[in-house]
């Protein structure tokens, strides 16, 4: 049985500027994402990881190729349909200082609530559940500008969970966190994927950590090409070292 939730067939990613000119970041990428797996996305800065993630969730239209989410092609899905399948955690801090964490997380119910935006009792249950899932019950009534980076990141993950997606895409969620919070967050993602069958793609520069929690790795090289492998594959580890130009005697960190 095909359990792929995202299927990319030779897609070109990039930007459209104005009328004609386009900036192509990657050409002819193909990839599958399966239910319940964690994929670590790694690669040097500026190679196009963010662009790939943004393309996979429809924030940035693909320039060529075919991209399926479930059985449907992404171009034919409405924002609501897409939001019920995929949720994201983007880089950069959100600026909504007066917003309470609880309100922020319940925004994740957007694709499930009616026009008025009022929460049903089930919506409230989901919000409570995701707060405890990320271990942030104590933060519910704090406002965004009272949260530390780590706390806010947890809340943003809770918001993404509240969408009840089949797929979660996270762009460098550990960037500004200390080691403890990094490990906590990565473990959390792995648990979510195991217990709820959510497919997770997470990009990060914490190679070591990513190796430990990922089922598979997508390695993007400087030319924007995507290599797929497994964390414990020695051959793939060599490829990673060469893409990042890591000398052999540093190899212990990339096992």
């Amino acid at each position, binding site marked *: 049985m095909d359990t792929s939730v995202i299927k990319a067939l030779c897609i070109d990613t990039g930007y459209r500027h104005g009328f004609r000119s386009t900036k192509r970041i990657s050409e002819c990428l193909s990839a599958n994402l399966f239910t319940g797996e964690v994929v670590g996305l790694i690669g040097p800065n500026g190679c196009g990881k963010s662009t790939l993630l943004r393309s996979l969730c429809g924030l940035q239209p693909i320039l060529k190729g075919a991209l399926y989410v479930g059985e449907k092609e992404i171009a034919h899905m409405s924002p609501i349909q897409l939001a019920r399948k995929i949720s994201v955690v983007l880089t950069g801090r959100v600026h*909504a200082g007066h917003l309470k964490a609880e309100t922020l997380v319940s925004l994740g119910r957007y694709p499930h609530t009616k026009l008025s*935006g009022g929460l049903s009792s089930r919506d409230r249950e989901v919000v409570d559940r995701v707060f405890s899932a990320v271990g942030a019950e104590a933060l519910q009534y704090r406002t965004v500008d009272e949260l530390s980076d780590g706390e806010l990141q947890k809340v943003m993950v809770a918001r993404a969970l509240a969408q009840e997606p089949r797929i979660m895409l996270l762009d460098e969620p550990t960037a500004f966190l200390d080691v403890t919070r990094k490990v906590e967050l990565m473990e959390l993602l792995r648990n979510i994927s195991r217990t709820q069958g959510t497919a997770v793609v997470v990009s990060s520069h914490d190679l070591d950590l990513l190796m430990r929690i990922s089922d598979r790795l997508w390695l993007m090289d400087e030319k924007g090409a995507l290599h797929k492998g497994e964390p414990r594959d020695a051959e793939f580890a060599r490829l990673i070292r060469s893409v990042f130009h890591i000398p052999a005697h540093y190899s212990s960190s990339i096992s």
Partner: protein
Amino acid sequence: MRRAVVVRFALLLLVTLFLFALDVFKGSVAIPLDRIFEILTVPLEGLQKSGELATAYSGERDIILLFRLPRAVTSLLAGMGLALSGLFMQTLFRNPLAGPSVLGINAGANLGVALVILIWGGAAGGFVAALPFGMKALVTAASVLGAGGVLVVILLVSRFIGSVTLLLLVGLMFGYLANSLVTLLIHFSAASRVQSYLQWTFGTFGATTWDDIHIMLPVVLAAVVLGMFLIKSLNALLLGEEYARSMGVAVMRIRMTVITAGALLAGVVTAFCGPVTFVGVAVPHIARGVFRTADHRIVVPATLLLGGAIALIADIVSHLPGQGGILPLNSVTALLGVPVVVWVLMRNRAGRSYI
């Protein structure tokens, strides 16, 4: 939590009603309270039956029913309209200084009005209400068209510009362009017409008739209803357009709806009251501050009430008895609004986000 919100709304409603009453009761002519109540509650027919009362009251009756009451209603509507328009813009552009006066929407309305008054000439007074009916309709249409014209250009540009900040700057530029065209018009116009136009730019809530209110009321109400439907999306937009889109907001459509509603509000209010400054920018910040939230389910009604209340205060201050005349409304709104804007900027500089 919920209790505190309800209490604050109740207080705010009471204050607004009180200010409305004060605006009707106070004026350059002292009219006893009981007579005002009588004028407001007893229909004209009843008075006429009781003989001489009708003639004795007729002057005061006119003052209350034809001047003070429409002025208070206009203040309320204009304040609500401008404040809601400002809230729409601030959330959409995620910018604390956004408002109808930014984005060139007011300037567009201004240009429309200037074209009509300066070229065709505002015969008497210069304020919209003092004009003959044809001119009044023309000025209103020109104001809404001016606001709408700038709006259409901005919407076209927004199809090619992803960043709302850039869009805001483009709007600012259109504002400068419209203002420079107005200056050119002034340069080539007769002095009497310039006088009329300048008087309009001072702003006032006191120049509207019931006929004008019959136009303002439905537009403001329509925009308020639209605002209620936008609450869910406006909240999602607090996290930025990308998150909003990822949660299922049809961003382009919402953007257009929000700007259209904002421009309609600003255009109509500007036509009848002149380019009133600072109400649109300052009130949403006060609303967020008073209720300590950015949640639009609370901020939208709070902004409406506070907008009405602050416009009423500005109107009352500009009519304070014993100063022989009426202060220009814009100098009053600036006095009230500038401290708020400065406070927001200082807080923002301290590294906190503003919305």
